């Protein structure tokens, strides 16, 4: 009885740059990263940031213009896709429409030199793993979107690749199915201990499935860290704004002592953990909408503001509040809170709320 195992290996980029054709602007600019074996790492970023190019360079579908790519410690920079031990699940699934589900899953096995019996055995095990036993004789067009997606995963898994790549695998599924499938992917990854690199532009999806997230912007890595790191301690305004929503306020660092910074925000003074690189002088503060607490106007340690708009969205209330630093976006979990448009309020910043960020 064949079982799908894992041959997880690490992936490493050393100063990799990719420039397409005669374009002057690099699609990926001198990035270095290291992905440990058996981890699920997400490449996250807006469209055109270079995340898909990075993924395709791991697959060998694009060749790096300069730099080095290592998989499992071996240099694969010049190796074409055919010769790399990497499989990929495509956004469109790319199931061969003229082959049945079985033929699709067996396709890669046939070219890997397995004896025929093992090909059949492994394909069966692969389909079983994704819960599609008995669907082997169907054509891809006879399956639902979610089922096609699982066939694509099975087809990639049965090769027991060193690295499994996902290129926005959920973008063709409806919202409910998306949550379900992403949990399945995460389960299989953890069960088999696969190295998975996952590309998405959906930050919620990234936060939910990843061991680590690499946020990319403008062809470079903006931040690399665990989901919690990224959400709670974004390194810069881009990450703060891209992952969840954030209010960015200009502030001044007055002093730093024992790693605690004393920060002035208008008339307020807040103490926060200082971060590497912060020095006294002008700086920026990022605050999540849910981490601002509304108080009645004039309450102690609050920033004064006027509510421009209050919106009831079911699970919580959303406010646009005019302050001396521009508009702030605030959410309040208490839907019965007594705040209305036009009212003046005080914005309170509890500990672990605001975060100092670089420019």
């Amino acid at each position, binding site marked *: 009885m064949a079982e799908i*195992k894992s*041959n997880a290996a690490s992936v490493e980029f050393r100063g990799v740059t990719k420039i397409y*054709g005669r374009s002057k602007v690099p699609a990926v600019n001198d990035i270095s990263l290291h992905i440990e074996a058996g981890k699920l790492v997400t490449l996250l970023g807006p469209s055109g940031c270079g995340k898909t190019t990075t993924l395709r360079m791991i*697959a*060998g*579908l694009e*060749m790096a213009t300069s730099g080095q790519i290592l998989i499992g410690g071996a240099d694969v920079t*010049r190796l*074409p*896709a*055919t010769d*790399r*031990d*990497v*499989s*990929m699940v*495509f*956004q*469109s699934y*790319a199931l*061969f*429409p*003229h082959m049945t589900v079985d033929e699709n899953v067996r*396709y*890669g096995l046939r*070219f*890997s*030199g*397995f004896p025929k019996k093992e090909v059949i055995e492994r394909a069966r095990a692969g389909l079983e793993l994704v819960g599609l036993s008995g669907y082997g004789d169907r*054509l891809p*067009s*006879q399956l639902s979107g979610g089922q096609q997606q699982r066939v*694509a995963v099975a*087809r*990639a898994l049965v*090769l*027991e*690749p060193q690295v499994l*790549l996902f290129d926005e695998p959920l973008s063709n599924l409806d919202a409910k199915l998306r949550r379900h499938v992403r949990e399945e992917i995460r389960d299989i990854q953890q069960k088999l201990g696969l190295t998975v690199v996952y590309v998405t532009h959906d930050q919620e999806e990234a936060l939910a499935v990843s061991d680590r997230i690499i946020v990319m912007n403008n062809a470079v890595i903006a931040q690399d860290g665990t989901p919690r790191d990224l959400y709670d301690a974004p390194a810069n305004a881009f990450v703060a704004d891209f992952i969840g929503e954030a209010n960015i306020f200009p502030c001044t660092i007055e002093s730093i002592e024992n790693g605690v910074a004393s920060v002035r925000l208008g008339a307020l003074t807040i103490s926060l953990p200082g971060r590497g690189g912060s020095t006294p002088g002008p700086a920026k503060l990022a605050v999540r909408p849910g981490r601002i607490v509304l108080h009645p106007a004039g309450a102690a340690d609050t920033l004064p503001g006027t509510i421009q708009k209050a919106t009831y969205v079911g699970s919580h209330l959303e406010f646009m509040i005019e302050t001396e630093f521009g508009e702030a976006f605030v959410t309040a979990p208490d839907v019965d809170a007594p705040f209305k448009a036009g009212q003046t309020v005080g914005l309170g910043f509890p500990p672990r709320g605001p975060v100092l960020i670089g420019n």
Partner: protein
Amino acid sequence: MSVTKRTPSLHPTLVLWATVGLVGYCLLPWYGLRDNFFTFSWLLDGWPLKGSVAPALFLVLQGEKLWLAPIGILLLVPFFLWGRKKTDPLFGSLLIAVGVVGLAWFLLQGFGIGLRGFSWEWLKAIFGDLKIRQFGMGWGAVLVGTALLFLLTLGLAARGAVGGDEFVVGSIGFVIATVGLFIFMPILQMLASALVTQDGDYSLSVFFQKLFSDRLWGIGCLTGGPRCGVAWNSLFLAVLVGVITTLLGLVFALMVTRTGFRYGAVLRALTVLPIITPPFVIGLAIILLFGLSGFFTQAFAELFGVQPTRWVYGLPGLLIAQTLAFTPIAFLVMIGVVEGVSPSMEEAAQTLRANRWQTFVTVSLPLMRPGLANAFLLGFIESMADFGNPLVLGGNFDVLSTEIFFAIVGAQYDQAQAAILALVLLFFTLGAFYAQRFWLGKKSYTTVSGKGDAGVHPHLPPAFRNTVYGVAGFWTIFTLIIYVTIFYASFVKLWGVDFTLTVDHYVKAFAVSWNEFGLHWRGSAWSSFWTTMEIALISAPLTAGIGLITAYLLVRQDFAGKQAFEFGTMLSFAIPGTVIGVSYVIAFNVPPIELTGTGIILVLSFIFRNMPVGVRAGVASMSQIDRSLDESSLTLGANSWQTFRKVILPLLRPAILAALVYSFVRAMTAISAVIFLVSAQYDMSTSYIVGRVENNEYGIAIAYSAVLIAVMLAVIGIMQLIVGSRDIGRRREDGNLSQSRTNVDLPGRGQPALTGGG
């Protein structure tokens, strides 16, 4: 997991090509044979020692043709790479060196040493006169040349060209080599021979004198003289035909899409007829109807008591015949474009208070511009290249294509004159090609996106619609009369004189009887008929193959010089068949490639004349297959050849069918290039028919044409059945696979956009 693949000590592709090269060098006759190679009679004819059938190795060992020795040594060099991997820098470099040096030497000796020893003066100056001569290359040389080419591409791939993919680099090399050899080289040789005078000298003044002669450019007809220059005649006719066919094509397309006309399918079926009709058959029918003893001429003369005239010979007849022949092509181009205009654009215009007529003029028509330009270009080129109609209908109205023919087969036999005329013809068609691109510019006319478009096309304003119906109705009736005439005339004893029904013509052409040797093809047409079938059946798959490979490279691969590559492969579309014919005669009449009089030259001319059709069909349907399918196949461990074979080809089945049928039909009906290339042994149906027409044996000519039309209808039907039925088994229950969305069915909309000249 990766199963360790057995790594042989020598790269398998290298072994393959080195072996092919050695087989060619050591076993097969180096020079071209007088008989067909595949009869293998050469094995009994003194092989391997006798000079005319000896392989290169035996020639060299006997001390003859010693210049072939270096090639043999070069073919052994790759075996020094034993045990080296493809990634080893030496591997690639050595193969590149072998390939470049080998091919250079191969071509140098081929072109340098010909029938009279050294072909070039400077070689004689250095080495003195060479007493030995050599003939055209044979199969041995072909294998060696191929092997050297692929060793070179393997070397380039090993050095990392196009992502290091052997199959892709090899295909690119192959296409470039064949297109260079069979399109560019003949055209260049023709250019060169345009400079040669009758005495064999090079002379620019004679060249210019011929180029600007009155015969070509005279404007006598404007000032009351008898005739204008041939070039003006051709240009005038081509522009007229281009404009009229485009307008008619538009009328039909509008009728099918925007008038609620319910018999669009019938109309589309009708458009198949001219494609399977040899172009001059329409001309014949025109003669039967309007010629001196034509049906309508006689009727008119009797009714009004006037002398019947030869009015139809010349411009009027040509215009009618070519318009009838080429309108369906314009229709096929236009219907694609007219349907492609997104209904939502027109609906948007209507909601912005434009009425139907304003919508049509301001939105629909401008969006159809690429179609109009394409249809005009096709009509123009077709008319320029048309050879059959001017030959039978031209009268005193001389055009370039027939003039070229008479320059080369006539009493004057003036190759340079033919080359100069061909140059003028080429200048016009390439000019039109560029003018079209210039006119379309870089504007985008694509309106239909991948998203579903729920709107419907607005109908035409009623007055306009009635005009459209009127024109279309008249045309349809006229076409039907033409075909009925062809059918009827084939059973008539002597048209215009004796209308008694008879099957004599068929008997004379297609009689079959039994004699002591079995079945005897007694009819006079059988020989050319079977030759035509054979040549068409051989060239169709080859055309489709090279076309689809080229399409794959264009759509799926990126490499330096891709634009030049695309231009080169599409160029033969703008080269009229007449020009191809002349250039082949000039280029392949002497060693190293000596092909005139063989069937191979016919096959080659068909492949490279019809290649753009295969390319277009392939490009059209390959663009509809998502690229991620190839990529996923690659990441699953298949190499690009396996991907092409297992994923792309199966999805391209409609395109393959279209390319196959089309190149088959074109090979059966072509005349313009063929007329220069046929020989007594390899006569083709079309040139046989034209010969009968010239002898005034209209009956046989028409009977033969009717048979050809019937045969081609049958072939198209059978091919559609074979390819179609296999599909059904697989895809009975699904309607939305990518391949079923391709529009390359027959008679599809996109592909016959390329027809070239009959």
